[in-house]
C-alpha cells in the first residue's frame, strides 16, 4: 500500500468512526438532555438554602458578581445585621454605659489618696501622646459613624429627618473610609512603642486578684502598665488589628473576595467593633472623669508623683532610680555660678 492510500484509508476510517464515536461518548447527555424534569427551580433553591452556597452559572457580561443567580446566604446576613448585631451592639454599648454610671454612683471619682504632691514625673512623651490621640481621635469618629450605620436609622433618622440623616451618614461613610488609615498607622506605632511594657507577667495576676484597686481600695504594685491597661492595649492591638484588616476587605469590595467573604468580613468587623467600643468606653471613663490625675498622662504627659506612686509603684521606683543614675547635661552643681 502506498503512503497516500494508507492516509486515505485512515481519513475514511476516522470519518466513519467519528459520528458513531461522538454519540457513544455522550449517551447520558442524550437522555438527560431532554428537558423533562431535569432541573427544578424550587428544588435547587431549597437545596441551596439547606446546603449553603449559591446557584450560579455563566454570564456574557464581564462582571464576575453577575454569575451568581441566587445567593440565599443574604438572608442569614440580614438576620445577623438586623438581629444579632443590633442586640450584641445595643447590649454591649448600653450595658457598659449602665455599668459605668453604676460604678460612678457607688465608687465616685477615684482620688489620689495621698493628695496631689504638686511634683510631676513624665509618663508619656510627645510621640506617645500624639500617637495616642491620632488613634483615639480616629477611633471616636470611626465608632460613631459605624454605630450610625446600624442604629442611626432607629435613633437619629426620626429626629433629624431623612435628608439631614443621609448627609450625616454620607459624610460619616467618607470619614470612616479615610480615617481607617491613620487609625491603622497609629496601631502599628502604638505596638512598637508600648509592646515591651505590655507583656503579661506574674504581677498582673496579683493585680487582678486585688481587683486592680477598682474593687476595694488597695493599690496593687504595678510597673509601667497594670493588668487593666495591658488588657486595653491588647484589645486595641488585636481587636483593632482585626477590625482594620476586615475593614480593608470591606473598603475594597469584591477585590479578591466573593459575596460570602464580604458578608463574613462585615460580621467580623461589626461584632469586634461594638465590643471594642464598649471596652473603650470604660477606658475613656477611667482615663478622664473616673480617676483624679489620670488624664494628665495623656494631656501634658506629666503625672503627679503621688498618683504615679499609688498606681505604678514599681515603675516610679525604676524611673527615679534612672534619674539618679544619669544626670541631665544642663545640670550644674549648686553654687557653681
Amino acid at each position, binding site marked *: 500500500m502506498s503512503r497516500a492510500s494508507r492516509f486515505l484509508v485512515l481519513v475514511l476510517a476516522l470519518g466513519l468512526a467519528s459520528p458513531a464515536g461522538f454519540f457513544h461518548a455522550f449517551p447520558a447527555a442524550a437522555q438527560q438532555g431532554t428537558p423533562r424534569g431535569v432541573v427544578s427551580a424550587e428544588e435547587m433553591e431549597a437545596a441551596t438554602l439547606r446546603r449553603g452556597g449559591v446557584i450560579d*452559572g455563566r454570564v456574557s457580561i464581564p462582571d464576575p458578581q453577575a454569575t451568581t443567580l441566587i445567593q440565599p446566604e443574604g438572608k442569614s446576613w440580614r438576620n445577623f445585621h438586623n438581629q444579632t448585631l443590633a442586640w450584641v451592639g445595643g447590649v454591649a454599648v448600653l450595658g457598659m454605659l449602665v455599668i459605668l454610671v453604676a460604678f460612678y454612683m457607688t465608687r465616685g471619682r477615684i482620688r489620689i489618696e495621698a493628695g496631689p504632691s504638686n511634683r510631676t514625673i513624665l509618663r508619656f512623651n510627645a510621640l506617645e501622646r500624639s500617637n495616642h490621640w491620632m488613634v483615639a481621635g480616629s477611633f471616636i469618629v470611626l465608632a460613631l459613624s459605624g454605630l450610625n450605620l446600624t442604629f442611626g436609622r432607629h435613633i437619629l433618622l426620626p429626629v433629624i429627618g431623612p435628608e439631614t440623616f443621609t448627609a450625616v451618614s454620607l459624610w460619616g461613610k467618607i470619614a470612616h473610609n479615610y480615617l481607617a488609615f491613620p487609625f491603622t498607622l497609629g496601631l502599628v506605632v502604638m505596638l512598637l512603642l508600648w509592646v515591651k511594657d505590655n507583656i503579661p507577667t506574674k504581677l498582673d495576676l496579683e493585680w487582678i486578684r486585688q481587683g486592680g484597686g477598682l474593687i476595694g481600695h488597695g493599690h496593687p504594685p504595678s510597673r509601667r502598665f497594670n493588668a487593666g491597661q495591658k488588657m486595653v492595649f491588647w484589645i486595641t492591638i488585636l481587636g483593632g488589628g482585626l477590625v482594620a484588616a476586615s475593614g480593608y476587605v470591606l473598603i475594597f469590595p469584591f477585590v479578591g473576595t466573593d459575596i460570602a467573604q464580604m458578608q463574613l468580613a462585615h460580621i467580623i468587623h461589626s461584632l469586634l467593633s461594638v465590643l471594642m467600643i464598649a471596652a473603650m468606653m470604660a477606658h475613656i471613663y477611667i482615663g478622664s472623669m473616673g480617676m483624679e490625675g489620670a488624664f494628665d498622662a495623656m494631656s501634658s504627659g506629666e503625672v503627679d508623683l503621688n498618683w504615679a506612686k499609688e498606681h505604678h509603684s514599681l515603675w516610679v521606683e525604676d524611673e527615679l532610680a534612672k534619674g539618679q543614675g544619669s544626670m541631665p547635661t544642663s545640670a550644674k552643681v549648686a553654687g557653681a555660678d
Partner: protein
Amino acid sequence: MARMKFLCDADRCIECNACVTACKNEHEVPWGINRRRVVTINDGRPGERSISMACMHCTDAPCAAVCPVSCFYTTADAVVLHDKDLCIGCGYCFYACPFGAPQYPRVGNFGGRGKMDKCTYCAGGPQQDNSLVEYTQYGSNRLAEGKLPLCAEMCSTKALLAGDGAMIATIYRERVAKRGYGSGAWGWRTAYREGVGA
C-alpha cells in the same frame, strides 16, 4: 391593585439577551451597570437553562430591611423602589439581596461606590412621574403610562413574563400543563415565599 412580579420561563429562554439590551436602552443605563442579566446554569451540560434575572421586587424585601438610611419603599403595585437622593452607596443591599440586583457606579477612591441603581420594574422613582429628573435618575416610568416592563415586552420567546403575579403564574401553569414540563419559577420561593403553584 396588582402584585407585580417577574417570572422567567427558563424552558423558553434562549439567552438572546434582548431583555438586557432593552433595559439598558430604555433607561439609558450607564456602562458597568446591569439592571438585568441572563445567567446560564449547567452551561454545556445536561440540564442547561438560561434565566433572565433582575430585582424580583421581593415581599419583605431584604434590601429595605438592611438599608442604614431607609431609602427603600414599596409602591401600591408591590414594586420595590428606592430614593437615590437618600442612598449613601454603602453596599449593604447587595450583601442582603438574594439576586445580586443592586448595582453601583464606581466613583472616587478605594471601592468608592456611587448611589445604588437597580431594576425599577420600569416604574421610575420617587420624583414626579415621567419628569426629566425622574428619567435622569431612574430611567423611564412605563408603569405610569400604563405599560409593563420593556424587558418582558421585548422577549422574543415570551420566556420573561411581567405583570400581576397571579396572572403570570396562571399563564405559566397553562404552558407547563400543555407542554408537559417546566423547571419552575426561578427565585419565587426566595422572593415571594411561595412557588408558582401546581
